[in-house]
């Protein structure tokens, strides 16, 4: 939370957030903590019945990682908006890396706001989330 936001400009890259392989335990804990009890994420039988080879991570777990990318860069009180498209599923044991690049800086509602293009990419190059955040710089 020590980012010098005065130095932020278009093209500034956020320090990437590298996530350890997502375990089945993490999926179980996230199901309980998030209230998303869809069995497709925690029960391999349910996943197979729905045509998947195995369980896969909740999209919102990945989006929570995008949130961490932002809040480890600026205080959460600066976050104005966070959005994403879920472009591919995240298999269990995948290793996501979250990245962000400032693409514009505008004055909105009397404050300088940076729009940050966000992505999550797996080790094999698959992009799982493509999103955007808006943060106040001052």
């Amino acid at each position: 939370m020590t980012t010098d936001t005065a130095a932020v400009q278009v093209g500034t890259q956020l320090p990437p957030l590298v996530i350890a392989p997502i375990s089945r335990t993490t999926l179980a804990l996230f199901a309980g903590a998030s209230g998303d009890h869809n069995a497709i994420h925690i029960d391999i039988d349910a996943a197979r019945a729905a045509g998947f080879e195995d369980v896969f991570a909740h999209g919102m777990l990945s989006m929570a990682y995008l949130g961490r990318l932002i809040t480890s860069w600026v205080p959460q009180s600066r976050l104005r908006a966070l959005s994403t498209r879920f472009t591919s599923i995240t298999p269990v044991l995948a290793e996501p890396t979250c990245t962000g690049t400032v693409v514009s800086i505008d004055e909105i509602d009397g404050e300088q706001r940076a729009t940050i293009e966000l992505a999550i990419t797996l080790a094999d190059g698959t992009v799982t989330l493509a999103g955007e955040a808006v943060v106040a710089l001052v």
Partner: protein
Amino acid sequence: MSAESLKGYRWPESTVDVERGRVAMFANAIGETDPVYSDVEAARGAGHPDLLAPPTFVFGLDLEHSDTLGVLEANGVDVSSVLHGEQRFTYHREVHAGDQLTLTAEFTDYFAKKNGALEFLVRRSQLTSGGELVAEMESVSVIRNGAPS
């Protein structure tokens, strides 16, 4: 009963309590180690009234409180065929443990693609406190018809 019939479905206004233990559990599950999300003393030391809820925490409150999957199921949608297509949050202020918020939600739009093989439901919800907006959410669910079951 169908996904299309859910367009315009509005949840009754409800009250949502932000529980401290739940916030800490969520922070732990997402690997968040900043103690403002899990240690009350650290949170207060940083100027927060209580634990700070991570940005996407409110989605789970809404999902569970509204039983969105249950509503889909009750309307003939096989929830194992539902994928989350898009999600957006707009923030007006931070959410902390101990907050009591008012939740309203509605399926605002429905559309189909590929001759109905893919159906989309748009859901918008709002969290307010004393009539003031705290956070807004919009999600797009994708229903994959013809998926093996």
